[in-house]
């Protein structure tokens, strides 16, 4: 899983092996706090699946129809 993921215009940082999530913040392998929105690997997979899902085709509006 890549380190970052874009979902609905927002960029998320995916937790990597060896990193520590304390329930609120993410700390990298060196113990440094990582800024930004954090998601775990399973959630990232859900987001990827939702992003890959084809959007329903737009319905054309009829103008002046009878």
């Amino acid at each position: 899983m890549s380190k970052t993921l874009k979902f609905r215009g927002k960029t998320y940082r995916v937790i990597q092996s060896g990193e520590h999530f304390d329930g609120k913040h993410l700390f990298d392998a060196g113990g440094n706090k990582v800024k930004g929105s954090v998601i775990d690997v399973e959630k990232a997979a859900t987001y990827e699946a939702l992003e890959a899902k084809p959007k329903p085709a737009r319905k054309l509006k009829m103008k002046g129809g009878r």
Partner: protein
Amino acid sequence: MAKEAITNASIYYGAHNVSSLTNVIGGLAVEIEVQDSTTFGSGGWKESLGSLKAATWPFEGLFDGASAGPHPDIFTGAVAPVTVSKTNPIAAGDLAWMLNCLKTSDADSHVLGELHKWTWNFVGDGTMARGICLDTQALSATGSGTGQQHGAVSSTQTLYAALHVVAFNGTSLDVKIQSDDNSGFTSATDRITFTQATGVTSQRSTLAGAITDDWWRADWTFVGTSATIVVFIGIQ
């Protein structure tokens, strides 16, 4: 926190709701085995290190001799989840204590003129978890419960879940624990999938963190007429 009198409780043992058979919930005792870690330079005082943790849980109540009741379990030596809450009827969000238990004794008393009583003793198999009732449902169709905001799971924590199917009239029931980062569950992620139930049953399952979602709900696929389930989760 104020003082309170114990006037009610919900007790689920395996596939049984034993609340109306029980009148004493003994102290849930969690003990830590102490190891002597004294060395030279300990300043003349003994030093101690906590080692293994163990939980025991005694209960007392009134006997119900139904063949499918909770008493014959003593002969199988099976481990089953025991969950207790101080509210009855139980509702989503209520505080609960969950322990996977081995029933080590089941003794009943026969005294002339007195009620037929029993005493049970349970020994924990694994972690005792403090959590909430995630959902309680009388099902007749497939669906999802209302989400509860119970918090994220850190890298060092574990999600504990217990499912009690206490009534079942149908073909199959698949229950999942889902999480999300919003109460509407627009991007729900499956976290725990219990083994398919085909009758009254109970299960306990765990999942190690990290999980960044903080909203939780139960989701079920039911083929049949009716079923009653109670689902608990805890993060520890």
